[in-house]
Each structure stands twice: as structure tokens, then as C-alpha cells.
């Protein structure tokens, strides 16, 4: 029996997957073939979306970049005709296909079921051992033994800070209270990361299972999943999954006959990056402004509703079921001396194969970017990789051999972070990148503590001046001083890490700052205040393409005559340059 599966994570949908699904459903109905058309979550190969899989007797053939026309071809030749469309195969179970390189070095623990199951079907998940870890824990282990197992596995927090999860559970378990809470931080805030979204969309049961096990371990009967409201698909699939889990007795009273009760509630965030900070998240669940609290007391002692609480992020929790099922030793077979397991990265930016990547901790950045990601696009030179988003930093091209592990990354000034990995090439201005992140943290500052609220604003103003060519000698030093003060004195992690993108770009790309400040030039010709677009008269053939494409009618000229750009109108969008086939538009 053949089955057609379409990848409908957010990426697949964004790439047009819904249209492909509709087309295939119509074809299947017309042909009356009995072929089932279903969907799955993210397979990780976002660059190749929309993706369509033909599943036949356990044999998988996966096609990438499928549009409606390709879908028809695949349906007729392969689904009906039994003959794969060879040139379009991305992967198949026999190790064939053009995209094997993307998967070759990955190890799938967290993403084990992502892209392989229909996330809205608990049976699919159960068929791939979902809740087996829970069953083992509840039926064969005490709460302490579960904590010990997680401790032994050595899994660290995947949300950024890297605190050992078992240790955290142990603290929370250590405080006696009539009620405790376990909270899943699914407020994926890094604007350039989508690991949590993909996990929730692709395999919500892995997170639910992790939470129930965590609740059992620390003695919490209530769980909250605090999810970003910007992830409607994830929230919908989570709701479906929770209902199914309740129906099957994985949630609710006396779970699997163990006497353990656990209730799980989704709280939709309302749009505030700072709520990724534990105490701000707690404030938000309590119905308040997400302003962080003074720590100590830590949430393990006094958290949600002043009760002992434990907060883990999505990816951390998605590891737990696997660990319990296969054991701590199996888990620690992956990774380095210091850090066990895998880490999921959202690889994006100027990279050929962007998507969701799960690798054993200990690979180098280069292996991820160049071997899995296929290097930069369009043969441009790699300049830096941004890791950790607004709390992280830019690691320069000459440090691509840095090992992906908590300590070596921290030594570069970046952080492991939640998993955002943005590739930048020679065209990206590093001062602009610093400004971009500062603008982000500044707009997301909660407004509570002086250093973050006003300090990041002053940093941003300085960076804006620099990118506008109004920088002054001493600005970089001023940025460094203020950075140091904010890092030391801000109330929460958002503020304390906000200067990192600035500090790393100063550390590795000081020359770009100096060029902006001293020469009033943007070396990459990105900062709009410092550039102008001009037509090179001996190259322009008067094809009129630029004039037609200019969104503000800034280009004028008759056909077959040299064109000209009105600098007063020009918004420096660069469309003319990208459209010109004769390389006749120059930036100066």
C-alpha cells in the first residue's frame, strides 16, 4: 500500500506545501487509487521544501522542491506507475538521492520522530516508541531514580545557559510543598531560531512525555507549556496531542495505573522576548507584565504562584523520553567529555542548505556550516556565524574549527544558545548586525532595570550614529564600557547578555567599526546612509529593466540610452543592481 506524505511544518507551508497537498489529494481522488495522502512535520530540510514522501512497505522516497507540476509528475510516474522520478529524489531509504549529505553526519534523538510521523496522530508516535520512557519511569523507577538517571545522562539545558537538567530537577525535588510546577519554556525568542517550533510541530508528544516524567521526578502534578503565540500550528498540534494523551491515559489521574496524577495546560504567550527568562515567564503565567524578579529566591524554591517550580525548554524536555527509554549510558555515548547528547540547530542565513540540524555535541562549526549546510550561497566568502541570537555573538570565519560545546563557544564570546545559527557572508556589515541585535533587545527590554532599559538604548543610539556615518572617536570605547556595566549589573539574562553581539563584533571586526567611524564608509556597502547607487555609463545599454523595476521611479532614461538615478528619490533598496544583467549599477 502506498502512502503520500507531505511535509507541513511552518516551513513547508511557507514554501507552498498546502497547494501541493491539495493537488495530490485531488489527483488521488480522481485516480480513485486508494492512495492515502497525509502530512508530517518538519523533516529538517527546510531549504528543500515543499517535500513529498512516497512510503511503500517501509521504503521511503523523499522528493524536494516539489511544486504542483512536479507533484503531478511524481503522482503519475511514482505513486501510480511505480517508477521514481529519479532526478527529483532528495533521499531514499537505500541511501540514494541528491541530499544525503545533509543527513549523513546528523544524529537524531530529539528529532527522532520529526518528519517521520503525522504529528496529529498519537498512534504514529506510539508506533515509534513515544511514552515508552514514561512507562518505564512510572512502572519501574522511583522519582529519585528518574532524577538520578537524568543526572547520569548529563543532559544540560538546551535553552542557552546549559545548566545540568538533573541538577535542576534535584533542587526542585528537594523543596517540599503541597503543590509544585513543571514548566516548559516554549517561548522561543531568538529571532532566527525555530528548533522548538519544529519539535512542537513535528513531534509534540516528545515534549509532553518529557514533562510528565519531569513532573514525576520533582513531585509536580501540574505542568504549563508557555508557548509563543506566533506559533499557531505548534499550539494547535500541542492541543491535539494533549487531548490524545489524556484519552490514552498518559495525562490525568493515576497515569498508567501508577497513582501519579499530572495535568498539563498550555499558556499562550503574548509577544515578549523577555518571557524566555524564567522569572519573567512565571510573572506572565501569573497574568502580570513579564518583568523579571530578583533572584534569589530561584524558582526551584519559590517560583510559579510562589511554589517550587522547574523550568526546562522544549528541546531539553524532548530528550527526556529517549533517555529514560534507552538509558543514560546510551545518551552519553553521544557528545563530548563535558557535554553529552546532541544539539539541534536552526541553520539559516547565507547558507546553501538551511534547515533543522541535529548533531552530536562536539562537531565543529565548520562541519555544520560547510558539510551539512553546504557552505555559503553563490560562492560568496563566509564571514561569520552568529550563534545564540541576541544573547550570543558572531564567530569569525577563521574560527570555524571551534568545537560546538558550551565552554569552547563561550570562550569565543558567543554562546551555545538555544540553537540559532545564522551564516553571514562577505556582504554582511558586522556593525549593522550589532545594531540589529541591539535594536531587538532594546525593543524587547521590559523597562524594569536601569542598565537594560536605558543602557541598551544608549548603546543602540551610538551604533545607529556609527552606521549613519556620525560616529566619533571614542564611540567604540564607550560601547565597551557600557557593555561591561550592563553585563555586570542588569537584572536578568536578557540585559546581561544584550551586549554580547556588540562585544564580539568589536572583538573580531574592529576594522569595520573604524571604517564607519573614521572614513565614514561601510566596507560591505550595506549601511544605506553611507552609500549611493550610480549607473556606470559605459556599461549601461539602456535596456530599461532597472527603470521598470525601481519601486520609487528613481531611475530615468530612454530605451537604448544611458540611464540615471535620482539620488533624492533613491531609497537604496538595491533592486536595480540585482536586476541589471550588465553589471552597470555601481555602489559607491
Amino acid at each position, binding site marked *: 500500500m502506498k502512502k503520500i506524505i507531505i511535509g507541513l511544518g*511552518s*516551513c513547508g*507551508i*511557507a*514554501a507552498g506545501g498546502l497547494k501541493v497537498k491539495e493537488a495530490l489529494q485531488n489527483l488521488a481522488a480522481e485516480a480513485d487509487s486508494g492512495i492515502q495522502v497525509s502530512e508530517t512535520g518538519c523533516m529538517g530540510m*527546510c*531549504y528543500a*521544501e515543499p517535500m513529498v514522501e512516497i512510503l511503500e512497505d517501509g521504503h521511503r522516497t523523499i522528493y524536494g522542491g516539489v511544486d504542483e507540476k512536479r507533484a503531478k509528475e511524481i503522482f503519475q510516474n511514482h505513486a501510480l506507475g511505480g517508477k521514481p522520478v529519479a532526478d527529483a529524489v532528495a533521499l531514499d531509504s537505500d541511501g540514494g538521492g541528491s541530499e544525503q549529505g545533509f543527513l549523513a553526519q546528523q544524529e537524531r534523538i530529539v528529532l527522532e520522530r520529526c518528519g517521520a510521523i503525522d504529528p496529529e496522530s498519537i498512534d504514529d508516535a506510539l508506533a515509534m516508541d513515544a511514552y515508552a520512557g514514561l512507562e518505564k519511569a512510572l512502572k519501574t523507577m522511583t522519582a529519585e531514580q528518574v532524577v538520578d538517571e537524568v543526572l547520569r545522562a548529563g543532559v544540560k539545558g538546551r535553552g542557552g545557559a546549559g545548566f545540568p537538567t538533573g541538577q535542576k530537577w534535584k533542587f526542585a525535588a528537594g523543596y517540599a510543598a503541597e503543590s509544585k510546577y513543571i514548566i516548559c519554556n516554549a517561548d522561543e*525568542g*531568538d*529571532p*532566527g*531560531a*525555530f528548533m522548538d517550533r519544529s519539535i512542537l510541530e513535528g513531534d509534540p508528544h516528545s515534549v509532553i512525555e518529557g514533562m510528565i516524567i519531569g513532573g514525576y521526578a520533582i513531585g509536580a502534578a501540574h505542568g504549563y507549556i508557555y508557548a*509563543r*503565540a*506566533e*506559533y*499557531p500550528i505548534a499550539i494547535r498540534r500541542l492541543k491535539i496531542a494533549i487531548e490524545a494523551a489524556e484519552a490514552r491515559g498518559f495525562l490525568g489521574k493515576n497515569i498508567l495505573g501508577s497513582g501519579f496524577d499530572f495535568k498539563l495546560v498550555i*499558556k*499562550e*504567550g*503574548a*509577544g*515578549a*522576548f523577555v518571557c524566555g527568562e524564567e522569572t519573567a515567564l512565571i510573572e*506572565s*503565567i*501569573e*497574568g*502580570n*507584565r*513579564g518583568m523579571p524578579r530578583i533572584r534569589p529566591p530561584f524558582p526551584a524554591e519559590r517560583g510559579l*504562584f510562589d511554589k517550587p517550580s522547574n523550568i526546562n525548554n522544549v528541546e531539553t524536555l524532548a530528550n527526556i523520553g529517549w533517555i529514560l527509554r534507552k538509558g543514560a549510558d546510551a545518551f552519553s555515548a553521544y557528545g563530548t567529555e563535558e557535554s553529552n547528547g546532541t544539539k539541534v540547530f*536552526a*541553520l*539559516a*542565513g*547565507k547558507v546553501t542548505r*538551511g*534547515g533543522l540540524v541535529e548533531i552530536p555535541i562536539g562537531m565543529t562549526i565548520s562541519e555544520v556550516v560547510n558539510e551539512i549546510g553546504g557552505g555559503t550561497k553563490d560562492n560568496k566568502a563566509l564571514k561569520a556565524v*552568529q550563534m545564540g*541570537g541576541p544573547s550570543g555573538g558572531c564567530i569569525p570565519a577563521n574560527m570555524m574549527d571551534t568545537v560546538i560545546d558550551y565552554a569552547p563557544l563561550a570562550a569565543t564570546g558567543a554562546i551555545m544558545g538555544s540553537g*540559532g545559527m*545564522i551564516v*553571514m557572508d562577505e556582504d*554582511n556589515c558586522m556593525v549593522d*548586525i550589532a545594531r*540589529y*541585535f541591539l535594536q*531587538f533587545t532594546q525593543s*524587547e527590554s*521590559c523597562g524594569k532595570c536601569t542598565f537594560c532599559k536605558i543602557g541598551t538604548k544608549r548603546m543602540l543610539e551610538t551604533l545607529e550614529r556609527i552606521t549613519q556615518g556620525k560616529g566619533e572617536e571614542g564611540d567604540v570605547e564607550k560601547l565597551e564600557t557600557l557593555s561591561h556595566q550592563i553585563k555586570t549589573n542588569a537584572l536578568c539574562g536578557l540585559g546581561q547578555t544584550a551586549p554580547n553581539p556588540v562585544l564580539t563584533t568589536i572583538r573580531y571586526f574592529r576594522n569595520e567599526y573604524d571604517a564607519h567611524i573614521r572614513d565614514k564608509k561601510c566596507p560591505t556597502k550595506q549601511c544605506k546612509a553611507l552609500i549611493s547607487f550610480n549607473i556606470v555609463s559605459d556599461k549601461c545599454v539602456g535596456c530599461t529593466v532597472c527603470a521598470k*523595476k525601481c*519601486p*520609487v521611479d528613481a531611475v530615468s532614461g530612454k530605451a537604448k540610452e544611458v540611464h540615471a538615478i535620482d539620488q533624492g528619490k533613491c*531609497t537604496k*533598496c*538595491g*533592486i536595480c543592481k540585482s536586476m541589471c544583467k550588465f553589471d552597470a549599477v555601481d555602489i559607491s
Partner: protein
Amino acid sequence: MCKDCAQSGKYWDCFEEILEGYSGDKSQLIPLLQKLQDAYGYLPEDIIERLSQRTGIFVSQIMGVATFYSQFRLEPVGENIVKICFGTACHVIGAENIADAICRELGIELGGTTEDRLFTVESVACLGCCSLAPVITINEETHGRLTPDTARAAIRDFKARKAVAV
């Protein structure tokens, strides 16, 4: 849910429906506001006032929450919401030019609403489709791998389909 209630004289019905199950748990404030915004399109003052009376949560506190989270709106918005992603990946690939093209197409500033109240254009921190950057959404539709040209086309296409649907 019921954006037309005001006209049909049932303005408060939605409110009552949403508050029906309210048990006095003040931590429900954000979900209540989310539901009210869903129903009314934004959070009108009289709704907040009544919410305060019903829940005992001070107006000052409700406003504190409503102005803290970027999801909440205190002004009515257009029928269709265009969200432009300004995540890192979108930024490095040119979100600004996409925003510029869309705003120019609709003749409004980022954050503004068209005069015919058909469109509101908002910026969002990240839609989580980084590998398909630059990305926008028009209501529930996601559009990726955009150029200023295709972004404009997406808006025009959406308008055309709306016109046909009407």
C-alpha cells in the same frame, strides 16, 4: 468570532460569553485579553473597563499587561494583517527591502492601517521560518523566499482573491 456584534446590538454578548467561565483566577488575565481581542479585533476601552469590574483587576494593571505584550492592540486594525518577519535570517537577507516594498504597495507606514481598513502591516520579531527568509504572513498564509517584487505580487494576488471571494 463576532466582529460585527456592535452593529447587531449584541456588543456585550461576546464579552459575557468569554467571561462566563471566569472563576476569579487573576492569572487568567492574559488568556481573557487574548479571547477578547480575538472577538473584538482589539481591546476597546469600554471592554477593559468592564473586564476590570468583572474581575476586580485594576484598569491600571490590565493596561500594564495590555501595553507590555506586543500581541495586544488598543486601536482597531485592518481586516487583514500582514506580518513582516524581522528575524535575524530575514534581516541578513533583506527584510527591510521587503517591508519597504509592501508599505509602498499599500501606501502606509510600518505599523499602519490602510485608509480602507483592509490591511494593517506589522513587524514581528520572528515567524520561525528562517530557512525560507525573507518571510511574511498575510493572515494565516505564509510566504517565503521573497523578493520585493514577489512580496508585492503576494499582496496583489491576495487582494485579487479577496475581490473574487466578495
